[in-house]
């Protein structure tokens, strides 16, 4: 391993990156864009659920009941429809997500101290949204019922209003949110996205860098030269790791400044851990570049092996503990899960070396494994 040769290759690669203006800007713009678009757009809050009502009663009580929905920020009143059957096409066309059917004699039954059934049709297309809608619906009904019950007790048992309210709800749940007190989903998603971006962008750059030479045939110059495969790979990948290091800083700035995520941990530790992660994901790109011969294939394969694991199996959206056994195994197999632990530990929980050395060690081991496989599988004498 001669350092001079590594330096020469790295320098050549760097010049090449610089000369391809569009590619160079994209190397920085794409990570930024992913971060910004997902950071602002990946909102899982279920709000403004559009709903329509069939009101067969048209009384004061039924209007008050509808007001409970339209008054909350979770629901968005679209309008009344005449018949029950009118709800179906609206749901099928996704114009509404919830349809309420209030029966005739709604008010009279409640006045007469009798239960009344309200029908709700929920669009189950997006299960998570349906589940949440159901939760809101139950909460609104529960509140209405508590008021009805309090009123009932006041009339029947002669309790005062405040006493009746206390009797109806004797236990209160006092919740305290830890680590993300304001429940800013942007803090969690914004910082967590560093994991996603750094999983996707370094392999892209490295894989394209190597496969481009393969496809254009300029790699034969390397094959014919005295450069060893170790020197080639190292020199080739160094500039891309360098670009990714700059990206770490940029992304960190976006997460803390733009998304306002607090950084409670040790910056030096976090930067070093990120570096290990970038080296590890660049190794994925190296393996991809050895498997394929065309750039299209390189791009698509990189997408396959990085995006889905980082998005779905990292714990960004669903904690690893709540996954099914198979999914959990996949989560432990890929590196993103470990880095996400480091990111959230450093950002939100303020943890450092003592608590997070295990994931860092796993990532380092992963990187060593990927790079050694890459080194062994890369041949200067292609079989074809």
């Amino acid at each position: 391993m001669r350092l001079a040769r590594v330096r020469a290759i790295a320098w050549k690669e760097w010049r090449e990156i610089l000369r391809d203006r569009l590619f160079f800007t994209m190397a920085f713009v794409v990570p930024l864009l992913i971060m910004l678009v997902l950071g602002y757009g990946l909102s899982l809050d279920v709000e403004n659920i559009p709903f329509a009502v069939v009101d067969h009663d048209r009384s004061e009580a039924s209007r008050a009941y509808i007001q409970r929905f339209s008054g909350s920020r979770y629901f968005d009143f679209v309008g009344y429809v005449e018949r029950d059957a009118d709800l179906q096409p609206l749901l099928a066309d996704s114009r509404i997500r919830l349809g309420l059917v209030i029966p005739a004699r709604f008010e009279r039954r409640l006045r007469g101290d009798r239960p009344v059934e309200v029908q709700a049709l929920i669009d189950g297309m997006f299960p998570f949204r349906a589940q949440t809608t159901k939760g809101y619906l139950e909460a609104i009904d529960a509140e209405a019922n508590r008021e009805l019950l309090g009123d009932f007790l006041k009339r029947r048992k002669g309790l005062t209003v405040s006493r009746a309210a206390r009797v109806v709800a004797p236990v209160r749940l006092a919740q305290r949110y830890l680590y993300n007190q304001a429940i800013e989903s942007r803090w969690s998603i914004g910082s967590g996205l560093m994991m996603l971006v750094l999983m996707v962008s370094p392999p892209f750059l490295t894989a394209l860098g190597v496969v481009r030479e393969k496809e254009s045939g300029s790699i034969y110059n390397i094959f014919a030269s005295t450069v060893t495969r170790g020197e080639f790979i190292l020199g080739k990948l160094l500039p891309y790791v360098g670009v990714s290091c700059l990206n770490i800083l940029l992304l960190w700035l976006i997460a803390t400044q733009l998304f306002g995520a607090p950084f409670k941990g040790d910056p030096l530790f976090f930067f070093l851990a990120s570096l290990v992660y970038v080296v590890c994901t660049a190794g994925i790109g190296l393996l991809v570049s050895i498997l394929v011969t065309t750039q299209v294939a390189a791009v698509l394969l990189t997408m396959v092996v990085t995006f889905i694991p980082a998005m779905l199996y990292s714990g960004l959206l669903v904690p690893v503990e709540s996954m099914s056994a198979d999914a959990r195994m996949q989560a432990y197999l890929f590196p993103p899960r470990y880095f996400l632990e480091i990111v959230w530990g450093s950002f939100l929980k303020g943890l450092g070396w003592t608590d997070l050395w295990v994931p860092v060690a796993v990532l380092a081991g992963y990187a060593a494994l990927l790079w050694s496989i890459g080194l062994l599988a890369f041949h200067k004498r292609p079989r074809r």
Partner: protein
Amino acid sequence: MRLWWRRMRVMTAKELLQLSRDPVLLIIIAWFFTADIYIAGSGISMDLRHASLAVLDQDRSEASRELVRRFRAPYFHFQGGLDSPREGIARLDAGESMLVMEIPPRFERDLQAGWPTEVQLQVDTTNTVLGTLATAYAARIVARFGEERALRALGIDRAQLAAMPRIVDRHRVWYNPNQIDPWFMSISELMTVITMLALMLPAAAAVREKERGTIEQLAVSPLTPFQILFPKVIAMALAILLGTAVALFLILLPVFHVPVKGSLALFFVVTALYTLAVSGLGLFIATISRNLGQVSMLVIVVLLPMLLLSGAWTPPEAMPSALRHAMVLSPLYWYIDLGYGILLKGAGLIVLWDSVLGLAALGILIFLFGIWRFRRQFG
């Protein structure tokens, strides 16, 4: 005219041949339409499952035990009792528990005396969605517990409940009554895959000609720009439609048992229309880039906002209103409406005609724009 058709046929055959000669690419495309959709569809559930709960019970009474018992599987996973508050914090820090509940001493006595009492819940909100979801579930459980206790204290039993004013919730969830996540996830992933490949493949095929210089040969041939570009789109669209069929009949139907309610023929027509529209966007990308590195970067730049703003992952209703209007420009926005509408909701043309029209208009516009750009470059 016969010559025109023949040229189109020959060019399409050439594209298909070229595609079939890259086995790695073919394997990757096959992977996208099968394994990738399977992976995305299985195993991921956005619902609250096994939220780990530890309890510091300072009362150790019958009432406190009953409350804890109500935190049941599959939503909660009861991990056991704690001895001190510090232990709870340590468990939360280490990520071993997501929730720590603290029941105060004299809980039962306060309840019986009718004094207001409070149960404390500490929630790990690193994942905000599940944090809030777990809190909402917990609040509901505690409220119901309190209400039932109160009714019991007042001597009101089930039979008397019928003689009380209350609203009974009769809800039904349509299209996916049991909220089976794979139905949603697999269709969503199928649409994502179609979008990505429809952007990528024609763009790649066009730029490869540029990179290798073979575009010059085509440019001096009697072929018009349309005849050069459109066969690429047809060839890739055929591959994508075939992939969609594979995904539907090998993964979505037999593995996930997605109940297809609408007309599959309509779905394929709509998919073909959508593929054409997105390919036009891909051709546009091909005209502004010189090599595949640039193409792939630009594809990501176009793909991500499109996926995100069209309601593939997040509900369009939750978007700021300015963005909601911008979404009309994304073909995926229309396609999602159509795809779910046809596959899950069984909607037909009568309900969906406006979306089909929107998609068609947008597709033709984008496609003409792509061709126009290309003609300016090589015409």
